[in-house]
């Protein structure tokens, strides 16, 4: 029986990671060759871990559902990556990055993990520069920084609005080098269907070759899952179409507990929804808030006139504009953290001041900064984002202010892991967005890339080795073993069951319906009645899905509808768990806002006495989950109300 042991090393906060590394168990080079590691997902965490473990001499197998590892959704991250280099000499330090991240997460993250993250942040930049990642530079040739939400220093390194792309191409190239050297074997267009346990330890996976539809068995002495977040539970999100929860959900069913599932991040600056046919939402990088000012009309009649197309934004006089973030949060202004900015925009729109056709949008205006810095500077900084906006919306953001609205973007929750990133299943690790570990109840901008690469380059290579040191006597297992056969059979049965339904409604129709339920009741603002309703509605939807979903084509062939159906089936179960978790957490913190628990000014009201813990959920049976609590102990940081005023 699993139990919660976060395995935080003893000693002072600043010495824990060094102490761990100094005392971890090692595997000698000749034994490394005999040890197999399975890695699922080729985003920043997965590809960085695969490259690093391959370099060390382990045998690595890496899997991705896309046609190439370079397509993983890390590639879409725009704004930047944080590090505590203090190049601008503005008072930054490892401690301050650690502090901002804990505070940004509304005191719901583990101190030791976050400190380690801040500690390795500088090494990540060194590593990426050595790989040839073309970060922005000053004229003198040194690296340039910009500021991001939730911080008062400029600690964000960036490569135009394509930082995720450049970092991923960096780790993809390191991975490609290992593939060439033969230490890593790549399985593209393969999806992990289940994890295989032998004597309680993770020993492999069942994967589906998406081209042939055949199921395959793969053995590994350890399994690392880095399959990203589950934002697509909302149907409309900034995630890629294929991003899904299935890998971590199947792990959950096999005993890997789920941490803080209700902690989801709604990003404030996305292009608003504009039609029923819409398949995804496009993010406009948070970096835009460096130079863009967010506002709505001060007068309701102006907002209404704009909604009906009778008034243009530029025709609203300065004194009739409400720069609501600057007004409410003078200290941080437009650079408040994402959860705060999103809620403030929602509050204005709900109060009738929203603009655009639907009234669900606020302005992001560059007029002032273009006037101050000139158009060229703005173009250099955000050119590709402005172009993207114009292509989608058909309006020139250099002339008319952008219109933006919050959208589901990132999930802080995920598989529960200990300090070693090991789940409650021995030998099964989770990294990057797939785990719950570092961002508490809200992630700060430019911290996802930092965490993905920290986990992949600088944490897993140590902790996986430490685990494998105890496995050197375990010979490679045959995948003919009963455990593999049983796991494969279970997957086969489930897929056959899906194909046999032959109902009347497409997978997308169910997914859209689930998304509506989640956005309405488990989205930016939640309350007890709504969450209970969500559980009821999802259960009903699930029953309908398993009776009426229509999947064309066949099982043993390329069948994208079957892939989607399998993922949506898991999203529905996850949605229910998210609602349970949100219902259990009778407080507001970070991205989790319960309407019953707010201050008079509409800010989050935490309840540290009763909820200063990580909620780790155990799967009991269908719709039955058991709560375990990992108490969060703050030794370094004083827990207080988060203030950005």
């Amino acid at each position: 029986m699993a139990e919660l042991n976060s395995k935080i090393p003893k000693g002072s906060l600043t010495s824990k990671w060094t102490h761990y590394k100094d005392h971890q168990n090692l595997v000698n080079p000749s034994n490394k060759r005999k040890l197999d590691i399975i890695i699922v997902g080729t985003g920043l965490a997965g590809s960085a871990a695969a490259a690093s473990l391959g370099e060390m001499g382990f045998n690595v197998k890496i899997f991705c559902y896309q046609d190439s590892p370079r397509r993983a959704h890390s590639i879409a991250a725009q704004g930047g990556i944080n590090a505590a280099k203090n190049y601008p000499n503005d008072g930054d330090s490892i401690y301050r990055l650690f502090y901002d991240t804990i505070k940004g997460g509304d005191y719901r993250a583990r101190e030791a993990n976050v400190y380690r993250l801040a500690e390795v942040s500088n090494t990540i930049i060194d590593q990426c520069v050595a790989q040839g990642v073309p970060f922005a530079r000053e004229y003198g040739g040194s690296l340039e920084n910009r500021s991001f939400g939730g911080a008062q220093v400029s600690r964000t390194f960036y490569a135009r609005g394509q930082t995720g792309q450049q970092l991923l191409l960096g780790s993809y190239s390191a991975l490609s080098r290992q593939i060439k050297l033969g230490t890593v074997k790549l399985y593209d267009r393969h999806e992990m269907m289940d994890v295989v346990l032998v004597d309680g330890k993770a020993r492999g996976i069942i994967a589906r070759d998406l081209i042939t539809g055949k199921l395959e068995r793969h053995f590994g002495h350890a399994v690392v899952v880095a399959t990203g977040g589950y934002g697509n539970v909302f149907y409309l999100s900034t995630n890629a179409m294929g991003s899904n929860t299935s890998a971590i959900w199947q792990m959950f069913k096999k005993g890997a507990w789920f941490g803080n599932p209700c902690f989801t991040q709604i990003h404030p600056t996305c292009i608003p929804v504009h039609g029923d046919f819409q398949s995804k939402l496009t993010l406009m990088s948070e970096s835009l808030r460096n130079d863009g000012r967010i506002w709505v009309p001060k007068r309701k009649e102006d907002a209404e006139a704009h909604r009906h197309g009778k008034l243009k934004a530029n025709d609203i006089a300065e004194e009739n504009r409400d720069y609501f973030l600057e007004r409410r949060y003078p200290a941080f202004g437009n650079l408040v953290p994402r959860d705060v900015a999103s809620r403030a925009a929602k509050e204005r729109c709900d109060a009738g001041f929203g603009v655009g056709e639907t009234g669900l949008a606020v302005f992001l205006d560059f007029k002032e900064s273009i006037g101050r810095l000139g158009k060229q500077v703005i173009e250099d900084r955000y050119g590709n984002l402005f172009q993207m906006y114009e292509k989608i919306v058909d309006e020139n953001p250099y002339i008319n202010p952008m219109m933006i609205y919050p959208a589901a973007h990132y999930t802080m929750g995920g598989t529960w892991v200990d300090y070693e990133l090991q789940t409650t299943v021995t030998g099964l690790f989770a990294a990057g967005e797939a785990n719950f570990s570092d961002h508490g109840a809200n992630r700060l901008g430019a911290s996802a890339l930092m965490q993905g690469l920290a986990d992949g380059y600088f944490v897993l290579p140590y902790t996986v080795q430490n685990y494998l040191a105890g496995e050197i006597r375990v010979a490679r297992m045959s995948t003919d073993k009963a455990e593999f056969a049983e796991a494969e059979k279970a997957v086969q049965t489930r897929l056959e069951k899906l194909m046999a339904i032959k109902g009347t409604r497409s997978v997308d129709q169910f997914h859209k319906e689930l998304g509506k339920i989640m956005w309405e009741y488990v989205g930016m603002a939640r309350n007890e009645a709504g969450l209970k309703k969500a559980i009821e509605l999802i259960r009903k939807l699930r029953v309908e899905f398993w009776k009426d979903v229509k999947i064309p084509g066949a099982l043993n062939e390329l069948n994208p509808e079957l892939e989607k159906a399998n993922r949506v089936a898991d999203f529905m179960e996850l949605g229910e768990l998210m609602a349970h978790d949100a219902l259990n957490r009778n407080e507001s913190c970070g991205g989790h806002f319960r309407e019953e628990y707010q201050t008079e000014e509409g800010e989050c009201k935490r309840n540290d006495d009763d909820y200063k813990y990580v909620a780790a959920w155990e799967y009991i049976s269908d719709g039955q989950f058991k709560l375990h609590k990992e108490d969060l102990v703050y030794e370094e940081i004083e827990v207080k109300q988060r203030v950005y005023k």
Partner: protein
Amino acid sequence: MKLTLKIWRQKDAKSTGKFVTYSIDNISPNCSFLEMLDILNEQLIAKNEEPVVFDHDCREGICGMCSLYINGRPHGPDDAVTACQLHMRKFKDGDTIVIEPWRAKPFPVIKDLMVDRSAFDKIIQEGGYISVNTGGAAEANNILVGKENSELAMDAASCIGCGACVAACKNASAMLFVSAKVSQFALLPQGQIEAKQRVMRMVKKMDELGFGNCTNTYACEAECPKLISRSNIARMNREFMCAKVI
């Protein structure tokens, strides 16, 4: 909008494909091209027909997965966008739209509009990297890079590996793709030590995989959704010549 679609349907790599005509109505001009295909697929599913298979993922023009040849142009009629960023307002009511997969020998069709581009991965595996292991990297600011070169390297590095350049080229040449990676490292001090082997190995692999030669029509540059410049090809040629001569 009402549209006629002529779409390439091919059961699998071995079968012979053909164009199938579909008509579709009530398409909003604000709909993206792939959303239009989603709508078509919904209708096909409702009619018990097989939906059209096409590659796509991020739908914001950065993952490089979408790969549609639309009315004779990779990624369609708009400039500097991928098919997922193309919007229906670029077409007129009543238009006929022809949709094909990338056509190039090194990119065999898998099904319908989906092709196999693993040849690109194989080229990168030959040398599209700086050989540095994790850990032990020097302090980042010890390596200074002039802003101009850094910007040029970034221009080259913006390649999304979609393969439009190959699809656009009458010779199915991968020169723009390969040269973008070679250029990125040629422009940076970090990439110098193994520059010669890099360009030699990558070019050799490119030829081996069946990509054609460059005959300077620059269709690749014209169709590149990320505006990768042909000057990268010139830079790669220079690197290649130097590597062979010196």
